[in-house]
């Protein structure tokens, strides 16, 4: 095989692993929220705030993992805010989500200004490529532990949806609020908790952005990844495991531009960089033909009604 093609493929593998991690966290978190019957469009803001908080805490404490935890807590706070506002009567979750997105990014930019310059300790990756002499492959297989944490969370969530009381309750609330009320379940409480946990995961996803890849804090860090992750949940038809696969696919698409550049293909660089956005659009058109996705859609989502 052509050496250039191999280089591109290896770069895309590495890219898929690196770029997919924040997608994965946001999408799995949003999957939980949507399974409970609510959409949180504000996760873009959560992602950005998570990135800022993680970077700041890592800078001040010197411990990147403390940053990750703090990012999760900041994300939960935004999620809890969304969850409690949406519990009020006649409040639309989509509108609140957009407001939360602007609020989250706004807060992050406001407090984040002083952290653009300094360098904070970053998360260390685990080298898995020791067996190979190929430098490209070795760098592609430097994998951040958060990647595995994300997969583990998705697997546990998929198992919990089917095999725990909480899983059944979340699915019940998301599919038929009247049925849930008839069982004496507090619909608002379940949705509040699901949105809060979803916010936590999105916050952790943000921590990966600033502490691992790209690995710095600036205002253009997320560029819409949080929103794309929400779209990705629809593409994954509300399954946490399919969310992981979809995130890997998006990661690979996102790595296409830089990978081609690394082998000297510069033509259409901006076009290839736009690959994930084009992919989002294409997937949305393809999967919104509705016949298949409608069957898996939680019945309580505002878009299902």
């Amino acid at each position, binding site marked *: 095989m052509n050496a250039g093609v191999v280089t591109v493929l290896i770069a895309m593998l590495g890219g898929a692993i690196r770029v997919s991690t924040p997608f994965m966290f946001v999408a799995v978190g949003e999957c939980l929220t949507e399974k409970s019957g609510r959409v949180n469009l504000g996760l873009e803001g959560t992602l950005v705030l998570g990135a800022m908080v993680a970077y700041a805490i890592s800078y001040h404490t010197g411990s990147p993992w403390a940053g990750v935890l703090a990012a999760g807590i900041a994300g939960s706070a935004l999620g809890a805010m969304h969850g409690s506002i949406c519990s009020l009567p006649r409040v639309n979750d989509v509108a609140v989500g957009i407001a939360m997105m602007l609020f989250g990014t706004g807060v992050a930019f406001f407090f984040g200004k002083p952290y653009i310059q300094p360098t904070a300790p970053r998360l260390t990756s685990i080298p898995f490529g020791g067996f190979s002499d190929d430098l490209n492959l070795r760098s592609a297989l430097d994998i951040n532990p958060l990647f595995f944490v994300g997969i583990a969370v998705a697997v546990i969530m998929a198992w919990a949806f089917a*095999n*725990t*009381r909480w899983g*059944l309750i979340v699915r019940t609330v998301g599919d*038929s609020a009247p*049925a849930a009320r*008839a*069982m004496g379940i507090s619909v608002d409480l379940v949705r509040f908790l699901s949105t809060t946990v979803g916010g936590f995961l999105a916050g952790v996803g943000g921590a990966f952005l600033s502490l691992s890849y790209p690995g710095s804090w600036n205002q253009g860090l997320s560029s819409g990844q949080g929103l794309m992750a929400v779209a990705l949940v629809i593409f994954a038809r509300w399954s946490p495991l399919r969310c992981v696969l979809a995130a890997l696919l998006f990661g690979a698409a996102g790595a296409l531009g830089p990978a081609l550049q690394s082998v000297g293909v510069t033509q259409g660089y901006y076009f290839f960089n736009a690959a994930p956005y084009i992919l989002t659009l294409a997937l949305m058109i393809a999967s919104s033909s509705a016949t298949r996705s*409608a069957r898996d859609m939680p019945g309580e989502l505002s878009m299902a009604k």
Partner: protein
Amino acid sequence: MTAPAPTAGMRAPSLETIGMSKSFGALRALQDVSIQVPAGSFHALLGENGAGKSTLVKCIMGFYIPDKGQLLLDGTEVPVRNPKDAQALGVGMVYQHFTLVPSLTAAENLVASRADAPAVINWRKERDTLETFLERMPFRVPLDRPVSGLAAGEKQKLEILKLLYLDQRFLILDEPTSVLTPGEADEILGLLRDMAHRGEITVAMISHKFREVEAFCDDFTVLRRGARVGGGKVGAVSTREMAAMMIGDAVVRPSAARTVAPKSGTTLEIAGLFAENDEGRDAVSGFDLKVQAGEIVGIAGVSGNGQSELVEALSGQRPIKLGQILVHDQDFEPIRDHFDKFKIFGLPEEPLKNATVPTMSVAENMAFRRFDKSPISRLGFWLSREPMRAKARDLIDRYNVKTPSTETQIRDLSGGNVQRAVLARELSEDVDVLIVANPCFGLDFASVADIRAQIMEQRNRGAAVLLVSEDLDEILELSDRIAVMSGGKVAYLTPGAGADRTTIGRYMAGH
């Protein structure tokens, strides 16, 4: 956690209400109602819409707190403040609308409904418990399919199984057979009656089907305008007397006579029609039917066999995948021009949703068929309000629509009046073809008789009428010919006179 205890001896409770009253603002929904349901009996609760049956059972179930009155279970007064209290006392209800979670399987629905479901579910153990439970039950349902894929009859059985699984011994059923074939209805009611007579459960059923009440119930209570107006042993009074108790002194229009109608007018012919449902499967698949002028063809069938999709396809709400519709031997497409040209009118089910814009005024809604024509429209674009209101006032008078004014939003009208307003719009002109779906669903006796008479009148004037209804009695009363729709096509066609209910039921069930 505990599995439901095995049935042992007399477990059925008796239930009694004493002087139950409930008001909503100025409306006295329930006035001093006392009923008695002895242990192990099958009780029927009769009454028109709005007679207070639902309010009464909701008071029993704890959804409402009665203003006054007591609830006695096995002779002792019990406080029921919310549905959980009722559940704890073993009182459960099957609602008209299913309370199952569509995306969960039957097994998941049953386990999730349990208050003491374990945090981590050991499915092997739960499956064993469910299997042993089902062995004792008179009917069973597939456990592993999502509920959304179950037939209506299976869902209804699962609803009842859920109550028994939760060890509820007093069952309240709210019109449980409206979604079932006569065969399924007889099976389920028969089995429940047997369980009751064995002393395992006590049943109270809200119904308006006298046939079922007479065949399966022991006693009955009739409510009218929130008060108990009669009751006793089933069989002691005739159906006619029961109906008289329900209606009271309301004037019911006598059913319109079937006259010899002109047979030479327009016909409606549907040939090889296919239409998909929302999931993309063929709900209507190869539907053939011809309706002559001056004839009502009734389409019977269990809901979900493509009837809604058929009506939607005919009225332009759903794309037609394949097939042809001919009106008077000319191609018909469900577009506005053709509706006008061929004089096709319709009364879809749930008219508030399907035939009106709820937030627009009564006058505007009544103008939907002619707002773009003179005299309402001038110069092809100018809408003039006065002719619109004048026409609406005329229709409101002629069709006896009760509305505060022509400018009231139509959603503020009662169900019967919305139905009449739509009927007025659709029937006030020359009608060649009339497509009607479940026209009397949820209406009181007087409105029902009125609307059926109007449909019959159109037939007598020579219109071709297609009547889709889930109410077999309505079909039997009105139709000249009856078609049974099953699996998206006509499974059986018979003349209306002398049609056999059992045969129709068998074809409805898909045999």
